[in-house]
């Protein structure tokens, strides 16, 4: 039956195409991690805020430093807003405490576009590690959070915090680190440091559908610029 031959050949071809397609699909879905999140640095950038920049400490690169006897420095005002020009972040700051389970409070689901300062940490610009957190995204519909592009920051990028007395503090990024949440380095992030520093925290890594949480955190480390 010679008429059957084209049909049989077609079946072989179709079978091979299905195998190739399904194998590709299988492999691609095995590797669909948000590490592939597209990056576009500089897009939607906002200008640096203006205002008096109050530096408490001389720059370590300056060779000459004059000092006077130092007691406990004057307390600084509470932070009210955060600007990160490079990644287009401009947000007011909520105040956040600890949740009843001892974890850090986060902005509510209807406020993913706003960041918050952890009131249990030092104020930005005071000695110590000040903590500001924000969401990477909302619950659905591809809603991006205030810190969606936080992972795009790298050493040297600038961060500004405005305080309630109108003063502005400028920070410079020193490092960006990703940590699995079950190996979160509490001491490195929340521990005491002897100079004015800032840590910005959001989520990253794989989103676990079972728990409704990302498996990793991104921490941006920054120090005050005078």
């Amino acid at each position, binding site marked *: 039956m010679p008429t059957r031959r084209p049909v049989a050949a077609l079946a072989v071809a179709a079978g091979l195409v299905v*195998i190739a397609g399904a194998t590709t699909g299988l492999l691609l879905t095995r590797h669909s991690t948000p590490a592939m999140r597209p990056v576009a640095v500089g897009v939607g950038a906002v200008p640096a805020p203006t205002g008096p920049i109050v530096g408490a400490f001389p720059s370590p690169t300056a060779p000459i430093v004059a000092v006077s006897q130092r007691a406990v420095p004057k307390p600084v005002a509470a932070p009210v807003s955060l600007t990160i020009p490079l990644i287009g972040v401009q947000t007011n700051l909520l105040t956040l405490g600890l949740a009843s389970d001892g974890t850090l409070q986060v902005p509510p689901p209807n406020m993913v576009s706003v960041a918050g300062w952890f009131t249990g940490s030092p104020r930005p610009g005071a000695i110590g590690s000040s903590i500001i957190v924000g969401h990477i995204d909302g619950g659905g519909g591809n809603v991006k959070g205030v810190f969606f592009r936080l992972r795009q920051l790298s050493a040297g990028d600038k961060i500004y915090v405005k305080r309630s007395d109108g003063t502005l503090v400028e920070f410079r990024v020193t490092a960006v680190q990703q940590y699995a949440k079950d190996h979160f380095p509490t001491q490195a992030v929340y521990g005491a440091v002897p100079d004015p520093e800032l840590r910005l925290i959001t989520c990253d890594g794989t989103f676990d559908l079972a728990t409704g949480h*990302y498996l990793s955190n991104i921490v941006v480390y920054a120090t005050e610029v005078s």
Partner: protein
Amino acid sequence: MKFRRTTRRLLMLLATSALLLGIPAAATAFAGSATSGTGWIRLAHLSPNTPAVDVYLYSFDDSKAMIVLHHVAYGTVSPYESVRAGDYSVAMRATGASPTSQPVLSTSVTIAARHAYTVAGMGPESGLRLQVLDDDLTTPSGQALVRVIQASLKQQVVKVAVGSTVLSSSLKFAAVSPYQAVSPGAATVTLTAGGTKATSSVTCAAGTVHTFVVLDSASGLEVVNLEDASGSGKPPLGGVSTGFGGTAGHGPGSPVPWLLAIGAGSLLALTGGLRLRRSRQLAIRI
């Protein structure tokens, strides 16, 4: 031969483009040096009868001073400077002395990443020495950490208490007490020596590290309260839940549909192949 060469070229091209695409992605992901590479240092003059000095900080491999503090008088403690971990030396010269002149005193200090140090001129002028103090940055949860540097020459032995907690019952001149955890809040530091007594109100928040420096003052004794470091008094537990997954690539899902499709494809190809072979055999027989 030509075919093989073409194949090799194609493979090279594929490998190169993979590298070109992959490397920048990996490099931009976490540029930025780790914070682990820096430590902190501060300089102090705590010798009561030594005149003001100029203090120099040198990186071990650089003869040019990194930091110069001019006219540092007794009782002065500089802010901490963040520096790359490594070996440094600290030199003291008389105020106004040439930067190239022989220092009065010098010492070396190794700065470890994420550690803080105080290098202080201590003791009487006749026995002046540069002492390197290891500064603690680890506070017990919910508490403050305090220590005392005794830099009073007038009162050679001082009892120091914060609230009702005695930090040292007899701290000698030029000695440093161990760190002690204290309850956070406002308290009174009391210095007692011989017949004299001095008090000062301090506030030590949870998560902070303080150094109380006992100094000779015009009227007797005084205490300077230095806030050395600060962090979260009660650190949050674990990671931070800052995302709801709206932009997450959906998880891998079940591999079963893909495996079923592969199976079906194999079946189809196999059946077609068998038919093809049988019809070819038939054609030959005919």
